[in-house]
């Protein structure tokens, strides 16, 4: 019985992980709950609750922080304008982008840009570790060599 419960929960986690992977890959698209719930093969109401139970935050918050992480990277590593970056990472309004960015990172995009280029790192590592927690200022360590 414990085995059956555990297998069901693992299967559910795996489907939530598939939806999370989709957010990491398709953050620039207008991903909504119905789309993500379809990827996870669950109902919309069930999706938000189950995702949160698996990963400790709502899918909406996960996607917001992914978009902000990508924006942080683009601000520091490219010359694109703040407005272009806002659209690049999937926000449709500059006002929302600026508000969410400031709330999550603790400083506005233009100020964040002045921190200068990030050290080179593999994209998977950067995306795993640079997604802002939303409750702390940016902390940094010295640059290392680029690796896969």
């Amino acid at each position, binding site marked *: 019985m*414990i*085995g059956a419960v*555990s297998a069901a*929960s*693992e*299967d559910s*986690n*795996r489907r*939530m*992980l*598939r939806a*999370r*992977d989709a957010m*990491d*890959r398709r953050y620039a698209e207008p991903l909504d709950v119905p789309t993500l719930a379809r990827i996870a093969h669950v109902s919309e109401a069930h999706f938000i609750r189950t995702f949160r139970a*698996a*990963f400790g935050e709502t899918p909406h918050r996960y996607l917001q922080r992914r978009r902000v992480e990508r924006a942080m990277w683009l601000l520091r590593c490219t010359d694109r304008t703040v407005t272009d970056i806002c659209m690049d990472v999937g926000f449709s309004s500059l006002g929302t982008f600026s508000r969410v960015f400031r709330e999550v990172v603790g400083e506005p995009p233009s100020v964040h840009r002045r921190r200068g280029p990030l050290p*080179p790192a*593999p*994209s*998977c590592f950067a995306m795993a570790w640079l997604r802002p927690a939303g409750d702390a200022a940016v902390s940094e360590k010295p640059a290392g060599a*680029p*690796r*896969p």
Partner: protein
Amino acid sequence: MLTRIAITQIFVPDQDAALDFYVGKLGFEVRTDQAFGPMRFLTVALPDDPGHEVLLEKPGPPGYSEEVAAQVRDLISKGAAGGHLFFATDDAHKTHAEFRQRGVEITEEPVDRGYGIDFGFRDPFGNHVRVSQMKQP
């Protein structure tokens, strides 16, 4: 002095399904598949790198209690069990196309990163795998 890595381990909740995936889809060959007490000692290696084996270990009793095994499986299914495998390839786009055709769950398409071209996928259980075609120095 240590000379090289001989065996790397990852956790898989189902060793038969792991063989279907790592051998059937990724091109590994079985190196060892034998009963070892209650455990099935199962290792695979790439034909071009036979000296580096990957141990496909199923968490379970008596090595791990049923409770701990369930925790490990929980982490695997959340993509948090670690043990990431990072592969090198001569042609990332070709390998990606082959894997996609075989139904591998791609998490990131091939992108030119500066250090090389890489892409990502997951095994059927949630383990994360990465493939890089590194630029020649």
